């Protein structure tokens, strides 16, 4: 049984993507109904961002973990996909080297580094899309939750994590293309990555993936597991005293969220055509948090709405008034936190009680005071 907001979201995302794809494929370029390919790519990009937002909402909205480094998982998934796409270039690169990607030839490398092996197989690459962010999240989360790092401290070390990865991926020696990242992709599973048909297909696949993620996330938070999770978010100490192990619950949802972000990143790369270390920048992760805040924290559907709204706004503003976008984004951060604590969803959903009530707490400025909300 699905509630109305989820149902509407599923229909709009899937139907919208299909409609765009059909209008792009079935109509002539001159027709008024025709959807240009750049719109298809843009829509696909938004849907991938929506997956990242969904992942952030799952941990922030339901487990109280404010991650300022979720874009790291997104980017890692993207790099795994990028590596597969690089291996598909084969001899069509600038240097025509069948074995090595262009940047390695340029850097004078003689053989493929060990961690690049296997990425010529699509299945292996897809496994890595899930495994790499998942394992990183598992190790990081295990260490963090076991020693009860919570609240702001956790936020700051997640930010440090993505910052460290940013610095690492900028290095040429890392073997991931350094500053330029991975680009110049040719085809995916034999289909030309530039063609309209492939792009339309990727858009529809992204929409399906997003809907699947929404259903999985919804299932998780509605289950018994999800109820404990919400209890952990609201009063972690009390949940612990009731005999639950909050760290295990957090760890499971944290890893799940990282994998969701990784899948979003993997679908993002073929549609954008490039992945570089700037995807790891802490600003990206914080932007993802604001998408969730705009849509409404702890509502899942709100995260998708927020991601689509803010990114559409970004495209629109940067086209219209490029100078103005950072003012607008900054003002959005301030406005939403001050005046719209429950986001866009809070404006028109009153019946659903998934969202937490904004805590009416007495102002306290104690140094060690911690509120997860």
């Amino acid at each position: 049984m699905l509630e109305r907001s989820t149902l509407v979201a599923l229909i709009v995302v899937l139907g919208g993507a299909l409609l765009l794809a059909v209008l792009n494929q079935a109509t002539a370029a001159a027709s008024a109904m025709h959807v240009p390919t750049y719109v298809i790519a843009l829509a696909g990009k938004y849907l991938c961002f929506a997956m990242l937002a969904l992942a952030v909402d799952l941990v922030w909205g339901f487990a109280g973990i404010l991650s300022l480094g979720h874009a790291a998982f997104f980017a890692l998934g993207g790099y795994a996909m990028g590596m597969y796409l690089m291996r598909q270039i084969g001899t069509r690169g600038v240097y025509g080297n069948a074995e090595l990607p262009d940047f390695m030839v340029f850097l004078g490398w003689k053989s493929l580094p060990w961690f690049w092996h296997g990425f010529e197989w699509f299945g292996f690459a897809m496994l890595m899309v899930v495994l790499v962010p998942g394992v990183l999240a598992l190790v990081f989360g295990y260490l963090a939750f076991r020693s009860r790092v919570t609240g702001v401290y956790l936020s700051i070390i997640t930010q440090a994590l993505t910052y460290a990865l940013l610095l690492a991926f900028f290095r040429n020696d890392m073997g991931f293309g350094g500053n330029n990242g991975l680009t110049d992709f040719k085809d995916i599973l034999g289909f030309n990555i530039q063609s309209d048909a492939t792009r339309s297909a990727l858009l529809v696949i992204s929409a399906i993936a997003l809907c699947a993620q929404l259903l999985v996330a919804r299932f998780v938070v509605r289950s018994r597991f999800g109820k404990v999770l919400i209890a952990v978010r609201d009063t972690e100490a009390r949940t612990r005293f009731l005999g639950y192990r909050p760290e295990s619950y957090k760890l499971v949802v944290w890893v799940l969220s990282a994998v969701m972000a990784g899948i979003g990143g993997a679908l993002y790369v073929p549609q954008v055509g490039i992945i570089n270390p700037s995807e790891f920048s802490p600003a990206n992760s914080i932007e993802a948090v604001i998408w969730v805040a705009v849509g409404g924290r702890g509502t899942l559907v709100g995260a998708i709405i927020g991601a689509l709204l803010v990114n559409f706004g970004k495209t629109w503003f940067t086209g219209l008034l490029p100078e103005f976008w950072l003012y607008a984004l900054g003002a959005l951060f301030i406005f939403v936190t001050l005046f719209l604590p429950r986001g866009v969803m809070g404006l028109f959903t009153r019946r659903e009680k998934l969202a937490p009530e904004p805590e009416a707490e007495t102002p306290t400025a104690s140094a060690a005071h911690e509120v997860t909300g």
Partner: protein
Amino acid sequence: MLRLPAWLMLVLLVLAPLSARAQETDDAYAALAGSAGIPSAAGFDSVRRGVEQLATSGDPRAAVVIGALQAGQLYARADRALFIKQPDGSFVDARSGAPAPDAAGLRPVRLNNAVRSAIDAALGSLRLFAPDAATRLAAAEAVFKSHDPAALPALTRALAKESDAAVKTRMQQARAAALLSSGDASEADRLAAVAMLRARGDIDARGFLASLSGQPQSVATAAAAAITAIDRQLQLWSILQSVYYGISLGSVLLLAAAGLAITFGVMGVINMAHGEMVMIGAYTTFVVQQLMRAYLPGIYAINLLLAIPLAFLVAGAIGVLVERTLIRWLYGRPLETLLATWGLSLVLQQAVRSIFGANNRDVDTPWWMSGATQLGGLTLTWNRMYIVLFAVLVLAALMAALRYTPLGLRMRAVTQNRRMAAAMGIRTPWIDALTFGLGSGVAGMAGVALSQIDNVSPNLGQGYIIDSFMVVVFGGVGNLWGTMLGALTLGIVNKFLEPVAGAVLGKIVVLVLLILFIQRRPRGMFPLKGRAVET
């Protein structure tokens, strides 16, 4: 033979009653003309001898003449009189420097490779007698690098005349190196030379000693021992240098984090716009410098001293404004504060970009802050030294302000027990605003210091925000001593990792270590204890 009359003239000159030194000089000048006209082996040989003689003659015009010869501007007349072609095409007499009215029939003095290398050596040893001490020092160093035994006579004479102690030491070292390279020095001399180089103790001395070969057994043993000693010494200096770099980086981190220790450490406000307060301080310095250059050029040298209080006021005022309009609505909701202040940082960055442009702005370093001093094997740059000093002063002032001023007393009271403080008549909202202003003002002062060592751009603050938070969390929230120790530890660990792992990888390693550290000690090195901690 065409030149026969010239030789006769020379003989006449030689016979003239001159001092031996002057006669040597005359010989030299005459020999220099040897290769004018048709080149011949004997002619070049004569020029080479002339160069060598002139170099050791002590003639005041020797450097000019040999320099002209090197540049191909030395000309000879048929009677072997020498002239230098000036850049404007006129000629002067080489010997006297007087203008030469008649420039007919001149031929350039030609060079071959043997002459050229003689010129190089001669110019080197000539500079050993230069009136300027710095030139002599450089010349002695050049001889040390070449360790050419041919320079020995010149060095010996220069040493006899030398009065500057530093130059003299350098010349002795050069002489030691030349002695060891020459074939005919006694074993005792060689041992003394090795001891001299061991005392010098730097990487060049080590390199030279390591390159020695064909020495007597005792000298070779002494050289090997000297190399070991120098290695130990160099290692010690490099450790000290790393410590100094670490302290320097630590003081920068401390400056950036000191304000955060107030806003985050004492008030518990996550201010992601803290870096932008630092950036505003740096831009205040820029504006102060521009204004002073325009209106007060007379006291321009003290612009930084003026910029420090101004940066404190500007950033502090912005801090108070931010607290009153934004932060105060978000107390007790740290994650929302984080997001709102991040938004604020975007707005501030873009505002500065709109006003000052996206490019880096030039901020001068005053003369009294530029340069460096050498302390043993350490190079200490003045600007870094001043920043270390400034960081210490800022921290001391901050601690004093919290401990001894009425405002500090109230701040501590509000932090420890807000309700009780309010009951005692303290206007807590006002104290909140002032505390936030103090933290922001300190960040502004840090910006003045950072403008001296970093690019002043709208992104200046972003580079420091993560580091600052790390320092505060590492040191223990709410503890200024912890902040200081955290900054210094991070700085020194960073600088010791850098040579091993490289700059970027070193930073990554530090970040990973910090992440692991926070897992072990989530409340930092010096956690607050007592009832104030509500876990």
